[in-house]
């Protein structure tokens, strides 16, 4: 019991005294997961929209691929990225294995199918005639896309939350491609694993508290955006 209470006490001390190492791990985590989610949004949301809103040959196949991607085991993503970026691998010349860049690539592989899949499910709930209504009002391709994203706003934000949740909590893939190098590729999850292994429970608890707080903060912001109804978005176009 003492292990836990002492651990929590020390954890708070570490957090509030601004322990340099913990602070750096936190910043790297935010950077890697943040960039991953943003790139995954850029890839996943349009992919979900396009697959969901258009009828084309092989649509069912594409949807199956996306759905499979949603359940992709992170270690599989990690292995795949490792193989590609390994010194003798096809992209080995880039020399980015065991760097944050490699971690970002692995996380994109995990998050973008999640974001695409949830977006896809969301836009399929939209009345397909709304697309024609938008076109009929004179919207070009991008305006139609934008209008429909707004229409699927609630579930699309849920997609981003799911994607973020997927990457920030991920440990297997980032461990594999990042190598958990202290001061370079050590993030909250891999550091926690390391600290528990070493018996440094106080630091592990501090790391997990920060991880939970980050997850909560990001989801809180997204929820607030999601629940804010009636944003006056037509007025945006007026000066």
């Amino acid at each position, binding site marked *: 019991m003492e292990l836990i209470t002492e651990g929590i006490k020390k954890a708070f001390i570490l957090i509030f005294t601004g322990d340099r190492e913990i602070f750096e791990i936190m910043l790297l985590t935010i950077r890697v997961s943040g960039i991953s989610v943003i790139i995954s949004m850029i890839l996943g949301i349009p992919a979900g929209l396009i697959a969901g809103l258009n009828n084309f040959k092989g649509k069912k196949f594409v949807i199956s691929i996306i759905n499979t991607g949603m359940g992709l085991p992170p270690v599989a993503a990690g292995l795949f990225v490792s193989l590609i970026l390994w010194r003798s691998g096809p992209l080995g010349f880039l020399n980015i294995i065991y760097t944050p860049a490699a971690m970002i690539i692995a996380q994109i592989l995990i998050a973008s199918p999640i974001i695409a899949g949830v977006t896809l499910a969301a836009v399929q709930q939209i*009345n397909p*005639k*709304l697309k*024609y*209504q*938008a*076109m*009929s*009002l*004179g*919207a*070009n391709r991008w*305006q139609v896309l934008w*209008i429909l994203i*707004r*229409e699927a*706003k609630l579930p699309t934000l849920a997609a981003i939350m799911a994607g973020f949740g997927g990457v920030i909590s991920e440990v297997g893939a980032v461990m594999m491609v990042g190598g958990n190098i202290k001061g370079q590729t050590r993030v909250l999850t891999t550091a926690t694993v390391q600290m528990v292994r070493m018996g440094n429970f106080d630091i592990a608890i501090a790391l997990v508290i920060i991880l939970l707080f980050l997850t909560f903060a990001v989801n809180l912001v997204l929820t607030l955006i999601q629940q804010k*109804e*009636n*944003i*006056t*978005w*037509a*007025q*945006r*176009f*007026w000066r």
Partner: protein
Amino acid sequence: MGSKILEIIKLVKKYESGFVLKIDYMHAEENKILVLIGPNGSGKSTLIRLINLLEKPDSGNIIFDGKQISGSDIDKVSIRKKISAVFQEPLLFRTSVYNNILLGLSIRRQKLSDFKDSFDFLIKKLKLQKLLNRNPRSLSGGEQQRVALARALILNPKLLLLDEPLANIDQISREELRADLFDILKNMGRSTIYVTHDRNEAMILADDIAVINEGRIEQYGSKNEVFRKPENEFVAKFVGAENLLEGKIIESSNNVCKVKIKKKKDEHLDNNLIISAISNYLPETRVMIAIRPEDIALYNIEMQNIEIRNELITDKNTFHGIITDIQDSGIFKKIEIDCGFKIISYDTPNSIERLGLFIGKKIIAGVKADSIHLFKK
């Protein structure tokens, strides 16, 4: 004749279901309301989507505002910006009523300040003043459609497409909105194509009418032409000329001809089977005789009123018959009469009582020659 805002030439669109839309020719005139009328599934909405460039025709030309728009090298978005459409569903977006009304303007990058007067006019006419901040989901079907109409009308389109905009609305709101819409359209002088399956609506709104059935235009013409002079059986039935009789011209002179009506069954009444109509078909032509039920007047055979007798002798075709059925049909009652052939008339309950009509009663049915329309069988 005004100038043509839209022409459709040899347009063909085939669907996997086997349905084929094939319009040889049709046009809409500037600042007039063309009503496209036909039963469900006749291809009306398909035609609207083709005009709105939401679907691609297999072949044929659509000429809008003097320019061919059906080719593949056309900037569809810029054409759509000159047209606006309202569909059967209001199709409002998840934002306030105000933003929904302005959505088309913002898409077209127009300034609200340039449309202030028209905005004020429309929200007043469409009774939307108090609803601007509401979420469309909290509005009734009729109110939602008012928003959709405002959104389309404020764009000041060169051509307005209205695809059964009143079809999903309850009757009271529908009549109110129809009156408001009619008022706006007449006021603003818009070139409009209005789709409906309701002939009353066509009667109220149309300048011109195109009757469409199974993907083809059955008849195109002014409202009066189509309603008074249907060209075939389908159009006659569809525009409400419920009495359709077969006959053969036996005599023709000075635009008046006598037609012998084909008997339906063995005649049990001593009846006149010759009808006079205004037409110049030649003798021996086989024709269909179309009579609108409201043009048939019924007379009580026992009435001794001299004026009525004179009226009957002078300018009416008269038939002796027996009432075989009287049914409720909305505010009117539908009366079926056997004159050797079946005819239908409508009358108010009051008038039926005054004339002393009942099933089995012998009566005289009269129709003026100029209320009878003939077309070739």
